[in-house]
């Protein structure tokens, strides 16, 4: 090793040390622990990224990363025994996300706004989030101009990736978004290099429009006509929380003159059923509103259950708003048909066995406070958890209504094949 090399190495190490020193000071400012951990990670990542250009060798950033890792692990060890055990069970749900700060880097204003809306749960629901994301991407694409010495088909994907990362920082990505984004990226890489930039952008936006039309809007129309055949006069239909598809199905059936009543089951943390309730009752449908624990008392009156889904897994299990699995279980117990309305673009490859492998915690700020005045502050031994999703096993599902027809859960795995691989 020459003298110069050695000096370079020393400088890198010094830089890494400074990085390590800077971050605890930053972290200490954060008020509560989970956010501190996440901020630590974020800030250290940013710092190590910032350090990279000035010291463009692998050694420095690697050492910085290892330092970060040790500091993160020590901060976890600081917790007392019981707490650590409690946290360990749910640690993989991910720290509760807080609305991310001012956007860093080249983030389009539409995406920044969308990120805030996601973080504040102003836009929820797989379909709504997907449509909002795609529409925002259209403006991103329209405002994009290819930098010199590269092509749109190569560079736009990386540009979009930054936007996506920003959105994921606000709230974990939904399966619907992931599928749609995958589709767009394929379209971008497939776009013709020789096409003028504006034309290429217009064509991409048009393709996004087509995607929204075909996979969501038209799909919902097909689903509501298909589901209509399952609704008879005099039926009592039960639904849980609020699904945009189920809402369309019920309103459509009502407009077609079917006489039925609806039981809306609801639960904290989101109490989304209230929205559905007011929509349905103002349309003139007879509604009953109950909270989830009351379900067994009323389920004997039900003829059919309709729910929506966040995603379908390939074994036929359905990933949906927390509580859906419980409704499915009770319906199965009483031999009541449990029907899931779900567009095929929500198909997700892979199989989860329980609701623990993948889930999301609702931040406390968005969960609707309970009606009772008594409020629970976080004590050292008391933690409040609001999982957002649960997994309904395929055995409790009677049928899945998709735009390609009514299928049993066991046939969900054949959807990609039936649609042609590229469409999922």
């Amino acid at each position: 090793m020459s003298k110069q090399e050695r000096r370079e190495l020393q400088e890198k190490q010094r830089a890494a040390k400074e990085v390590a020193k800077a971050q605890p000071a930053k972290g200490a400012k954060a008020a509560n622990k989970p956010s501190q951990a996440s901020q630590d990670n974020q800030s250290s990542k940013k710092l190590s990224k910032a350090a990279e250009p000035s010291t463009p060798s692998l050694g420095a950033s690697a050492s910085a990363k290892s330092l970060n890792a040790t500091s993160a692990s020590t901060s976890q060890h600081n917790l007392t025994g019981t707490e650590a055990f409690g946290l360990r069970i749910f640690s993989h749900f991910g720290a509760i996300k807080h609305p991310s700060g001012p956007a860093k880097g080249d983030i389009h204003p539409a995406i920044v706004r969308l990120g805030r809306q996601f973080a504040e749960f102003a836009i929820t629901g797989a379909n709504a989030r997907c449509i909002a994301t795609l529409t925002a991407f259209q403006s991103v694409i329209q405002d994009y101009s290819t930098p010199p010495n590269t092509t749109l088909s190569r560079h736009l994907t990386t540009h979009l990736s930054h936007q996506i990362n920003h959105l994921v920082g606000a709230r974990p990505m939904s399966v619907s978004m992931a599928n749609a984004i995958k589709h767009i990226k394929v379209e971008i890489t497939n776009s013709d290099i020789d096409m003028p930039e504006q034309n290429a952008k217009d064509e991409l936006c048009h393709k996004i429009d087509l995607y929204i039309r075909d996979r969501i809007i038209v799909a919902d129309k097909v689903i509501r006509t298909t589901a209509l055949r399952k609704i008879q006069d005099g039926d009592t239909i039960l639904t849980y929380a609020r699904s945009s598809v189920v809402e369309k199905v019920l309103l459509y059936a009502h407009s077609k003159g079917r006489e039925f009543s609806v039981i809306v089951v609801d639960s904290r943390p989101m109490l989304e059923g209230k929205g559905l309730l007011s929509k349905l009752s103002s349309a003139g449908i007879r509604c009953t509103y109950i909270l989830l624990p009351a379900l067994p008392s009323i389920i004997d009156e039900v003829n059919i259950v309709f729910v929506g889904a966040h995603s379908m897994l390939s074994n036929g299990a359905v990933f949906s708003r927390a509580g859906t699995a419980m409704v499915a279980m009770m319906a199965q117990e009483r031999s009541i048909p449990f029907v899931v309305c779900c567009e095929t673009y929500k198909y997700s490859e892979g199989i989860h066995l329980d609701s623990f492998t993948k889930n999301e915690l609702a931040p406390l700020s968005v969960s609707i406070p309970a009606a009772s005045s008594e409020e629970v502050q976080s004590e050292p031994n008391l933690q409040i958890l609001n999982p957002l999703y649960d997994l309904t096993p395929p055995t409790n599902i009677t049928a899945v209504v998709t735009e390609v027809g009514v299928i049993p859960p066991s046939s969900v795995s054949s959807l990609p094949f039936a649609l042609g691989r590229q469409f999922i």
Partner: protein
Amino acid sequence: MDSQVDNLIWKLRRRQIVGSRLTAIETLLVLRQYITKAKFTTIDQLIQKIKGIGARLVAAQPTEPVVGNIVRKVLHHIREEYKTAANKPGSSIQSSAFSLRNFVVSGQPRHQATLQKTEARDHLLRSRSDWHHDNHAESLKPVIMEAIQDIFDELETVYESVSKSAKDHIHSDEIILTIGKSRTVESFLKAAAHTRKFTVIVAETAPSYGGKSTAKALASAGISTFLVPDSSIYALMSRVNKVILGAHAVLAQGGIFAVSGSLMVATAARAHSTPVVVCTGQFKLTPLWNLNNEYGSADIENPDAVLGFDEGSLVDKVDVVNPYYDYVKPELIDVLITNDGDHPPSSVYRLIKEAYDDADHEL
């Protein structure tokens, strides 16, 4: 005297007294007062009078079966005391050894005392005239008061007695799920926490949100506690080792009335093969059978907690149902932990036979 009974009746009607133990204690206090002042020449008179009060109290609040249980228990003790007093001189009839006939008739092979009782009752039913010789009926009062004091002590210490075996049921690092607000469960878990380290997940149990105060109480006792919404019970059940429920009443077939939500928890537990443990005092054992009302609730509460008037015009358009209790079938329960040992739900009918007299089932 009657004013005291009326007072309790009104309190029960207005739901000013809720909760099994409190209701039990109040009922017992009224009965004790009544018996102290009561004038009676035969024990039969006393029994009939207490039955009359019992019937009025039960009618006042049919959703609190504990009222009837306490009345039955008091009657049972009165009969017991009378029998022991009456049989002292001529206990020759009771020499009968075990026979299948005795077993079938009495169903109580355990102790002679109860056997005596039923034998004596048969005897008594056959010849009513026997009753007239009891000029010592009034003299039984002190013994009866003592027996009532025993019931009282049992009620006072019921939480401690149920919690005795807590550490045998909960082991280290377990994850326990419970719902609602039950003092019995709370003290059970706290007792277990003296020797074991475990985690409790409390479902907040809408719309009463009793789970919140349970979670608070457990956390302040140093137990690592998670408060979750009811919707996530199924999601979390795959990690839960045991479900512990409190009961409002235990019926003769072994099923329980418990806070609404219990049935879902128990069903979810069964779907995951998680054991369901019910903690209850024996005063909640009720000689009633729930045969045709498997899923209905015993009581419907004010819907305001579910959908309040702050929702505006929505309230006019929709029906809101707020059932207060669930009936949990015996098939969903693995064990009942009582202040007198652990029992499977299938043997509750036997406990009931031991605790109350058959003649008092109808008040």
